[in-house]
């Protein structure tokens, strides 16, 4: 049945756990999101360095919602985490904020629209560096969704 469903594509390891969390875009929730994700992913037995990479990538995505998506108001940030049996972590961070008009430009190292503030323009570079793949979809005026995937190495206790 599974083979039929996935057609010719390589079969993905089944999802073994998932969570969803909505929280307001207060900057203090950046550390909350990292802690929540860390606690949830702990069941996959990540190494300390994997955990710190994932928390950092997540922090970038959540901070972008706080700073850019909702610049002058508090909006909702949705965090979804899915875990696959093979140790793949899929993080999705979604906002309904201002959106990104040019995603390719936004991904360039050192690019920032926040010239007045103190942003380094390295957020997407860091997300790319700390994950195996990144997917960004966005509609100006509608919002942005960032999906980060990272496969953990080593033996799982499952």
């Amino acid at each position: 049945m599974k083979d039929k469903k996935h057609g010719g594509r390589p079969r993905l390891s089944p999802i073994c756990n998932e969570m969803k969390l909505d929280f307001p875009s207060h900057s203090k929730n950046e550390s909350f999101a990292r802690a929540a994700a860390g606690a949830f992913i702990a069941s996959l037995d990540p190494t300390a360095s994997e955990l710190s990479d994932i928390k950092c990538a997540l922090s970038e995505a959540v901070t972008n919602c706080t700073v850019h998506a909702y610049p002058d108001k508090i909006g909702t940030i949705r965090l979804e985490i899915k875990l696959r049996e093979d140790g793949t972590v899929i993080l999705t961070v979604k906002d309904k904020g201002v959106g990104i008009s040019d995603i390719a430009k936004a991904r360039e190292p050192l690019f920032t629209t926040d010239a007045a503030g103190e942003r380094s323009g390295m957020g997407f570079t860091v997300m790319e560096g700390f994950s195996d793949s990144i997917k960004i979809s966005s509609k100006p005026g509608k919002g942005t969704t960032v999906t980060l995937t990272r496969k953990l190495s080593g033996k799982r206790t499952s």
Partner: protein
Amino acid sequence: MIKSNCRYRFTATPEGLVVSVSGEIDHHSASGMRREVDNIIWNRTPTHLILDMSEVEFMDSSGLGFIMGRYALMREIGGSLSLRNPSPVVMKMLTMTGFDKKVRIINTVFN
């Protein structure tokens, strides 16, 4: 009650003004720290600012922004900035983004 997961203290030394940061540097914690550090810089106008980052447990790109912002301010007042003993997470962040080439890093041996 601990309000922030990021702490910092100032020490005047012959080498310069040392800001020792510990805990987690993110956008939330960096904005408060930035105000206080900049106040001290304007008040004392040190010739050298040393950010001791040996006890930083977490840092994202907001930390890079914090470092580069203080770097720019120190240059503006005719001084300089260096990072002392960056912890492994800080070092990883600096090398990954190439920022290790932009700022002076001092590694001292400590037990």
